[in-house]
């Protein structure tokens, strides 16, 4: 680290000390972030980006990231429960974990953890092969309604975000979600292969996974799950096509259960500060992550609603009783 860097860090720190109430400065000099997934995945990358911004901008020092992979993050969640009351621990999580808790019949859920903030997200896109007769979502839905089993959708594993989106679209389009033909693949690569090989009617994944093929004209994007058009993405929203579907594969941060109100306030304030830095904005830009920041009581409410909604979708698809 250069001199310049340290100086900058000291300056930001002192600014923070002057501006913030006493609680803010306390207790946050040794933060640990758990990524409940293996290195390289979305939660791991989110945790590590968070770590570098928090450290480099001098919001918290030092920050350590560790991985507890397994079972859609629910193994990490169980460990978070064991760390009850630890105000220096955070865990990255997201929609996938909300779903995994349901599909895995996890003994622990998110009702007792301390929500801190929602950070980023990615919208889902529905694509068809270029040679497909379907030009838009209405074409696809018409064929789907006529014979739900004959229109195969490729996407990620059963109960994941991709599957949820197809379930939501089925409901919005008036197709019985239990009759739809969803072909799960273990990774975005295999979904892509099935599409490029014309083996399925349509495919679903996060926009980033298909972006290159969409731009190169190898796949045709017919709808994106965003509530409103996204800058730089020339794909019509599903809403604009008359299907009331809105789904983001969001990622957020929670703390262990049982931490004090002031500890929670300190963590929320640190993330609020982190969110405002230029370094974080740059990270979002290079990683192509959509900023879905939301913290404090808003995120508390969102998390509760999302748990209810997810359970409903999974019941619709027939994965959860």
């Amino acid at each position, binding site marked *: 680290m250069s001199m310049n860097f340290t100086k900058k860090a000291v300056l930001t720190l002192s600014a923070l000390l002057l501006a913030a109430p006493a609680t803010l400065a306390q207790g946050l000099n040794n933060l640990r972030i758990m990524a409940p997934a293996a290195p390289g995945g979305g939660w791991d990358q989110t945790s590590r980006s968070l770590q570098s911004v928090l450290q480099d901008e001098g919001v918290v020092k030092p920050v*350590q990231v*560790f*991985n507890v992979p397994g079972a859609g993050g629910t193994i990490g969640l169980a460990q978070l429960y064991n760390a009850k009351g630890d105000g220096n621990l955070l865990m990255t999580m997201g929609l996938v974990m909300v779903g995994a808790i349901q599909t895995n019949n996890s003994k622990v859920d998110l009702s007792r953890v301390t929500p801190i903030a929602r950070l980023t997200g990615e919208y889902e896109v529905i694509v068809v092969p270029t040679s497909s007769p379907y030009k838009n979502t209405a074409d696809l839905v018409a064929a789907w309604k006529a014979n*739900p*089993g004959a229109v195969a959708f490729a996407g990620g594993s*059963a109960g994941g975000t991709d599957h949820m989106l197809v379930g939501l679209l089925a409901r919005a389009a008036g197709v019985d979600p*239990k*009759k*739809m*033909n*969803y072909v799960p693949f273990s990774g975005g690569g295999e979904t892509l292969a099935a599409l490029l090989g014309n083996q399925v009617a349509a495919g679903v994944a996060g926009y980033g996974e298909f972006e290159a093929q969409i731009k190169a004209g190898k796949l045709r994007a017919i709808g994106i799950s965003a509530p409103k058009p996204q800058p730089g993405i020339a794909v019509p929203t599903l809403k604009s096509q008359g299907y009331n579907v809105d789904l983001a594969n969001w990622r957020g941060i929670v703390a262990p259960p049982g931490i004090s109100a002031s500890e929670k306030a300190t963590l929320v304030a640190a993330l609020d500060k982190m969110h405002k830095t230029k370094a974080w904005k740059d990270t979002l830009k290079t990683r192509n992550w959509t900023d879905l920041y939301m913290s404090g009581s808003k995120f508390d409410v969102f998390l509760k609603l999302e748990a209810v909604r997810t359970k409903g979708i999974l019941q619709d*698809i*027939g*994965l959860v*009783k």
Partner: protein
Amino acid sequence: MPDPVPHSAAVPSSRPSISIPDLLVALGVVLLGLLLLIGSNQIATSGMNTVVGPKVFPLIVSVGTLGLGVLLTIGVLRGHRAEPATEEDTDPNAPVNLASPGLILGGFLLGTLLLQPLGFVFGTAIMYFTVAYAFGERRYGLIAGVALVVALITYLLFTRGLGLTLPAGILKGIL
């Protein structure tokens, strides 16, 4: 690794006795097949539209295991017996010594148990020590020294070199 000698050769016609250990293994395979069959039937089916449900492959595998187990049992009852694998470091004529593998296993589980409270270095050093001891090394000081050095180097290689997190245990703060 397998012994290329066909085992029918291992059964002299003058001794048509049944090998009890072989029989137990064969019945073990049958039991595994049965347990799998029961387990396969307990798999919940989801309400999803799946052409081939989650039970089909487990059923195929359990029926296959069961069938193979029955074939193996029949073979054993006819007097077939398995020839233990021969390897460069093993002596087929040496009396079978179950104390050494038992010791290694015990040391391994002890090391596993202590991995988190004592830390990675001591946990793996215990494993190293018991294996070397079970293989007949009796220079205790030497084994202990090598065990600690190997464990320490491995620890540093993985944590410093690759950035993995391994439990530091009682050495926390020193390493």
